[in-house]
Each structure stands twice: as structure tokens, then as C-alpha cells.
């Protein structure tokens, strides 16, 4: 059979974008689904990765791998710095704090001239492709799976189940929350770096509040706390708008409808087994 139709430019582009989303949504899954800390600012860490890596590869001419490492570390660093104060907050307070952080980063990027301001950064080297992204997707799934099954993963899950009991059983909850937030942010930054070097053009609008919500929707649809669910949810919500492209502006409507139906009939998500109280 001829599968060459699968490899036309358009399909490869959609698949690459889906892969990038999977990496970021798995990062969010660690923070929200596994640790139980609701984050509405995940796109901010994506933008930090994208901007820091794009800056070093355009202005300083750094090779892609160096840019990737710098992007990831900057994302992780911001995750840790932000995590220390805000992870004392719980539930909706934490959600609002992360949302606020997301907006601060967006406005900062919009008004910082050396990062291009509203024009963004263009002429980023086209250094990534579907196979690189696929490699990172596989690595991310492997890493997240192993982490969840490990003793540290169990410690993190116990925070989601009952913070007080967890601390009373000898878990340093502050430390594990920050670790989880840092790792989750690092994966968002990896996604952002790949995104920047795939699209070759970024601007602050790409990383707004809606992007964070979109990632959260993918996770909720697939099932919080489930790696398989997060992957499927991301694939579904990344491809539906493409498939429905013929319906032009109504296509985004399906997004909302899918989520409403899900919440009514399967609130734990397609493949979720657990209830996350955030």
C-alpha cells in the first residue's frame, strides 16, 4: 500500500505540532494531574523556553542543541523561582497566581524591545523536524512513566491524595511540589524551544492565556494523571480543528462542545482513572 500521502507537508506539520503539544501537556500532567496543583500559566513556561532559545540562536548564533539546553534550563529555573513562593497557595488561589504569572510574562515580552516586542522574533533557524520531535515525545513519555512509578513519583502522588497526611508520613511536600513544578516547566520549555525552531517565528500572542487553557483542555479530555490519556487527549484536540477546517470559523465551537459533553458523561477524562481535587 502507498502511505506516501501520510508524509505530505501539511500532515507532517500537524503531526509535529501535535508532538510538541504532547511534550508540554505531559509536563502539565505532572504538575496538575500527578501533583494536584492546578496551573493556568503553563504557556508562560513554553514562551520562556521559546524566547530564550530563539534569542541565543538568532542573536548569538548558537547551534540548536545549545539553544535547546539553554531554553530548557531557563524554563526550569523560572519554574523553580516561581514555585517557591506560589506553591504555598492551594487550589483556586494557586490557579490565579499562575494565571497572573502567565500574563506578566506575556506583557513583558510584548514590551521588551530586545526580544522583538510585539513583532516577536523571526528568522529563527529551522532546526527541528518531525523526527526530532518524535524522539523527544518518546523520551518524555519514558521519563514521565518511570518517574511516576518510582518512589519519588509515589511521594508526589501522595501530595495530590492528601497533603497533610503526606507531610505527616515524612514527605517533604514543599520540596516535592517545587521539583514537580520545575520538571513540568522544563518540559513546557522544551516544547517551546522545539516550537520556536519549527515555526521559525514567534511572537507574544502565541503564548497567551488561551494557550494555557488549550493545554489544560487537552489534559482534561484525555484524563488527568494518565500519561496515555494526556497523549490521546492532545492528539484529539490538536487534530480536530484541522479536520474541521472546512467549517471555517465554526470549528473552534466543536472544541467547546466536546469538552462540555466530556464533563457531563466522563468527568475523569477519556482514560483517567482518578479524581483530582485541585
Amino acid at each position, binding site marked *: 500500500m502507498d502511505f506516501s500521502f501520510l508524509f505530505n507537508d501539511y500532515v507532517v506539520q500537524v503531526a509535529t505540532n501535535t508532538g510538541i503539544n504532547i511534550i508540554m501537556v505531559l509536563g502539565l500532567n505532572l504538575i496538575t494531574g500527578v501533583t494536584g496543583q492546578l496551573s493556568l500559566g503553563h504557556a508562560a513556561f513554553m514562551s520562556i523556553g521559546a524566547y530564550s532559545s530563539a534569542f541565543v540562536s538568532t542573536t548569538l548564533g548558537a547551534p540548536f542543541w545549545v539553544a535547546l539546553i539553554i531554553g530548557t534550563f531557563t524554563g526550569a529555573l523560572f519554574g523553580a523561582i516561581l514555585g517557591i513562593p506560589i506553591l504555598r497557595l492551594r487550589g483556586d488561589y494557586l490557579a490565579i497566581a499562575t494565571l497572573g504569572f502567565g500574563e506578566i510574562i506575556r506583557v513583558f515580552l510584548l514590551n521588551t524591545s530586545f526580544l522583538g516586542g510585539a513583532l516577536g522574533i523571526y528568522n529563527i533557524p529551522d532546526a527541528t523536524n518531525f523526527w526530532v520531535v518524535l524522539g523527544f515525545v518518546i523520551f518524555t513519555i519514558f521519563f514521565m512513566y*518511570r518517574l511516576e512509578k518510582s518512589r519519588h513519583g509515589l511521594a508526589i502522588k501522595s501530595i495530590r491524595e492528601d497533603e497533610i497526611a503526606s507531610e505527616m508520613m515524612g514527605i517533604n511536600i514543599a520540596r516535592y511540589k517545587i521539583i514537580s513544578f520545575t520538571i513540568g516547566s522544563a518540559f513546557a520549555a522544551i516544547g517551546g524551544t522545539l516550537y520556536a525552531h519549527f515555526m521559525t517565528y514567534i511572537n507574544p500572542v502565541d503564548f497567551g492565556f488561551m494557550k494555557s487553557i488549550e493545554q489544560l483542555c487537552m489534559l482534561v479530555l484525555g484524563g488527568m494523571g494518565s500519561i496515555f490519556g494526556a497523549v490521546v487527549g492532545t492528539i484529539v484536540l490538536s487534530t480536530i480543528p484541522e479536520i474541521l477546517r472546512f467549517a471555517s470559523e465554526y470549528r473552534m465551537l466543536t472544541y467547546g462542545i466536546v469538552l462540555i459533553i466530556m464533563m457531563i458523561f466522563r468527568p475523569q477524562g477519556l482514560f483517567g482513572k482518578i479524581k483530582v481535587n485541585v
Partner: protein
Amino acid sequence: MAEILLELKNISMHFGGLKAVDDVSFVIHKGEILSLIGPNGAGKTTAFNVITGVYIPTLGDVIFKGTRLNELKPYKITEMGIARTFQNIRLFGQLSVIENIIIAMHCRRKTNMIQSVFRTIGYLKEEKACIEEAEALLDYMDLLGDKNEQAQNLPYGKQRKLEIARALATGAELLLLDEPAAGMNPQETEELMDTIQRIRKDLEKTVFLIEHDMKLVMGISDRIVVFDYGKLIAEGTPDEIKKNPRVIEAYLGKEVEEHA
């Protein structure tokens, strides 16, 4: 006299104007079963929360094996050897029974995150030993048959047992049990008494418990301390406590003299 394991020195815990615990001092000896009783709102759970680091006492010191615990974080206190159960069960409900136990062993394990993600030989060895120990503990507590069950699906009595097992898994020397018999029928209470005594004897643990069930308290305690309105009003053996007029007054009220 036996060795002192935990000492409360003039502990006061104030919440604004409320003196939940007011200038209380007592000691727990190694290897004993000490009960804390008192009417509702007497400050019993607050005392537990002060010992385990949930609250920092307004005044006074908590001393465990010669170390002052006051400003330590709860997880540090657990690492040092004090573990507790809760009045209203707080298990990790959506995790399995054995995972609940393994989480409690976390504080005694050494491998770091990179070792555990990449499953180095050292990690796998530690993990295997840990699972074996967890299974042995579950077997001891008669819960091995449910090891893969979600904790929230266990019947009530078993959930209580699992809480005690989880506290034991931390490796703590001193167990604080907050109303372990709450909601149990007489037969289950009987079983629980047996379990507590076994734990003390076989595992050489010290037990400090809050309980309202007088049959249990009088049946297993070596000593009893009594709280009323945040103050320690009596301390002694079960027989002494039963006869103590202040205790009777706290529970039943003062006798009104009849005038003909």
C-alpha cells in the same frame, strides 16, 4: 523508672484568646501505652498537632529523645521517629494499600531521583527490599490479601488498621493514635486492643493514644493523662483515674448537694 522518650514541658497553644492547651507538662516513657482522655474540645488533638509539628506551641518545649522539636517541620519530626494516625481517616485513597505503605517508608530510603528514574541497580535493590518489608508489615497487620486494593475501597475497620500500618512503616518509635476506635463496633474494638498490645510487645513501640472508648482506655493503658479545657487535670494508672474526683467532675459534672 523507664527511660523518657517524649517530654512536654509547660506547653501552651493559644489561638487568639483561646487557650486550647494551657501550661501542660507530662512525659511518655519508652515502651508504655499512655492514653490521653478528656471531654470534647479539651485540647487533645491540639496536643497531638503540637507534638507532630502541625502547630508551633505558643509557649513551652517538646523534647523527643533529648532534641527540641518545636520549630521542626512535620516531615522532619516523622523522620526522627514520631508517626501518627488521624481522627478522621486520611489515607491516600486512590493509591493501593501497598503504595500507602511504601510512601510511608520514603523517609528512610536513600536513592535519589535520577537513580529512581533510570532504575539503577542500587535503586532496584532498595525497591525490592522495600516491597518485601511492606508485604511483611501488611501480613503482620492481616492486610496482605488486600495489598493491590485501592485504599478508599477497604472496609472501615481495615482502613483504620492500614492507617496504623502506615504509621508503623515510617519506622517510628512513638506512635500517636488519634481515636483509633472511633466508629468501631465492640468486636472490632476488641481486635484493635489486641493489635495495639501486639505492636508494643513484638515491635517494641511506644504508644500514645487519644480515645473516648473507656473500655479500651482502661483495658490497655499503663498510664492515663486527663485534659479538661486545655489543662491537665489528672495523671495516673487506670485505677487511680477511675477514682479521681476531678476526672469524674469533668465528665459528669459536680454533684449538687440536696437541701431538704
